[in-house]
């Protein structure tokens, strides 16, 4: 069985325009994600995890290396196609929600479908289904500024999964939430993963990572280590992640 996502020898170098100094964000990333997996990528800020996610999201281009999604090399996705490709194959959840303040909740969720020129008749059942599974039916007519952070993030998740993407990419989804709403959101993630949704989440929160099935540690642009949950409970997995983090950090010193 081939992996849904395959990343080979990925390298990204940023050239500072002013000083001409090259900064290596990713030096040699190697990873695979199977369909139906829930992978958390952990690392301190500056470790390159956001760069990796941007490349996976086709928002950024690697300096060298290869990214394959469902057997297709992302390099062959032209700039022109990139937007449609993102819409059809990928879903995004961002730290700062990125909801459009000019749209109601309903319209925010429908946005990717409208962009794909789907007929209204087909959209509404999908909306119902997603809203129900995320428990946001009551919020549909509200506007983002009327919602709490947790509610906004749920709307963002709904927008991301309404297109039934092969891969859901989450960039610090709990970053702007308190612990209680974080918990609820992670619950949602676990639930949609159980329904078969593949998720790749970038985070520096051990708690968030402990909900995933597998955790990758990135440091200095390299995949340093990885942990499998196996049969562990959330709590056990969390403790293991915390230990690994401590070990990784102390090794640096």
């Amino acid at each position, binding site marked *: 069985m081939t992996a849904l996502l395959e990343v080979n020898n990925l390298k990204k170098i940023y050239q500072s325009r002013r000083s001409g100094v090259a900064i290596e964000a990713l030096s040699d990333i190697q990873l695979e994600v199977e369909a139906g997996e829930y992978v958390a990528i952990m690392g301190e800020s500056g470790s390159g995890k956001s760069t990796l996610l941007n490349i996976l999201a086709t928002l950024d281009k690697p300096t060298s290396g290869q990214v394959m999604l469902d057997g297709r090399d992302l390099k062959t996705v032209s700039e022109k196609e990139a937007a449609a490709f993102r819409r059809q194959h990928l879903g995004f959840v961002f730290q700062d929600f990125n909801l459009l303040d000019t749209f109601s909740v309903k319209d925010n969720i429908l946005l990717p479908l409208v962009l794909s020129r789907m007929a209204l008749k087909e959209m509404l059942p999908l909306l119902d289904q997603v809203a129900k599974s995320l428990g946001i039916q009551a919020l549909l007519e509200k506007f*983002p500024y009327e919602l709490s952070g947790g509610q906004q993030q749920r709307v963002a998740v709904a927008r991301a999964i309404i297109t039934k993407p092969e891969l859901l990419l989450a960039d610090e989804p709990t970053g702007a939430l308190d612990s209680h709403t974080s918990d609820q959101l992670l619950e949602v993630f676990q639930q949609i993963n159980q329904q078969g949704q593949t998720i790749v989440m970038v985070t520096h929160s051990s708690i968030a990572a402990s909900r995933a099935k597998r955790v990758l540690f990135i440091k200095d642009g390299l995949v340093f280590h990885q942990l499998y949950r196996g049969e562990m409970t959330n709590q056990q997995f969390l403790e293991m992640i915390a230990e690994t983090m401590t070990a990784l950090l102390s090794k640096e010193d």
Partner: protein
Amino acid sequence: MFFVKLAFQNLRKNKRAYLPFFISMIFLVALNTVAQLIITNPDMAKLPGGASAQMMFGLGGNIIIIFSVIFAIYTNSFLLKQRQREFGLYNVLGMGKRELYRLVFWENVFSYLMSIIAGLITGFVFGKLSFLILRKLLGAQSAFGFHVAGSVYLLVTVMFLIIYILLLLIDILRIRRTNPIELLHSDRSGEKEPKSRWLITIIGLLTLGTGYYWAVTIKTPLDAISLFFVAIVLVIIGTYCLFIAGSVTLLKFLKHRPNFYYKANHFISVSNMIYRMKQNAAGLASICILSTMVLVTMATTVSLYIGRADTVTSLYPYDLSIQVNEPGTTTSLKAVDKAIADAQDKYPNVKITEKNRVSVYEVPFTKKAQGYQTLDPNKSYNADTINMQFITTQTYERLAKDKANISGHQVIAYPVRGSLPGRHFQINGTDLVVQRTIHSLPNFKQQRTPIDMILLVMPNQASIDKILKAAYPGQAASQAPTVKTFFDFKAPNHKTRIAFKDTIKKDLAKTHTTAFLESKDEYEETSNYITGGFLFLGIIFGIAFTLATALIIYYKQVSEGLDDKKRFEILQKVGMDRKAIKKVIHSQIMTVFFFPIIMAIIHLVFAFSFIKNLLLVFGLVNGDLILWTTIATVAIFVIIYFIVYQLTAKAYYKIVERQS
């Protein structure tokens, strides 16, 4: 002292935010200075026709003042929005609201002093410069000079003091209403979705409709000016209401049509436009009003300038016309004949053509349901005034070389301007029947006047006398005919022409008769001053309004760019490609661009009948000329508008597309 210093520092450090504000305020001060200098110029009244010119530009001056207040509030709100976060920071750092008020007070004091000084100087320089150009335009002998009245500076200074006090109050109110956290985050807080406001929309429709109706139904030029001012105010109110409330109401209506709304190209545009209209409606309405002003001003003055030859011909059908109006005219008529004969002896190479003499009775009447009644001599002319000319059948037959064939109550009617109430009508109770209507009278070309005029051929002298006696009982002088002697003449050169005319004029003056001479050449000379002067003033107003329009467009683009930047970033992440985003941006920009100018053109269409009426006062009757000038003005303005727009749109794209 601390606040004075801090305020001064703020102005210096916030250059980027303050500079457009200063430019606008200096521009407004300069604009008002130039406008007031023009209006109060004593030489204006000295020009023939200067009184109505002064009235017209006085009107323009008032509109500029109203505009200045609105525009000042607009720029200030733009500035305030950018500076709210700064106020919040001061507040958090321990500055109370009272201290903030003091800070804002001193900032406004400095701002006022700087803009008033710079504005007055700019206004003076531009006023001086423009009058120099004007003098050149009119010729050296022009009586049109540059006068600097201290009162103008005082007026402008006081006016802007009031405007700045108003701005200060707005600032204070705004600071008072918000708390520090809100101030800090004011630019990030979600905006409420604007509501449909049916009441304001309906008010807008009503005021606009009434304004349009009045503008279109103005029948007589004399009514035009006063009534039109009211119409202008109504249209301005209507425009603001419709832009602010009507646009949102319409967009919300579209939004509630799911089959229209949930389409890729409508979805983003409609929802974005709702917010965009909420924020920019006032600016767009201002652009619309200003554009209309430019168009009306330019169309009017350019028409007048281009059509000045037409004007002269329509007001002066003959090169020279001498009128004698007194009982027992023979002595005076002899003097007239002698003056012409003497002049011809002196200038034998001047050739007189089309010479004729017509005895005509002229009486002003007021229109009534059944016919006409003598105009009350204590009342001034108005829309219901009509001038009647009566001639006898003998005169008619001599001129037209045509049998009149009328008797009893029958008349031949020649409606020079306006129309008859019907075949049967009364004059002071005397019944008359129109036997036939004619549309020209050979050998007696008629002057085009702004007032309605009908020429009636009466069966005989007795029937004319009867009407005159009823009109002016016991006033022999008023019952006397006007004897018009008129002719064209050709001279080998312009100098001889003027000399020939002057000789007759001087001769007649010596005879002490009531003879009154009208010379086409004389009028042509003064007409050049008036139309040239008007064109010049029109250009000044046009440039001023165009500049204001450009400034508003600039503001709009910048403020919208900042707001839209984040929105388009999100859209890109969610899966909208650059091309589609560009298309949406472009279509939004084009809508915002075309909306005000299309409204302005609609305003102009409704103002067109006013323009025609106004130009009639100046004797311009050539409707085609006015129409084509107006169309050309619109075309040129649209091009200029488009260029200004393109330049500022670039600034917008730069902001929106950065990084993405």
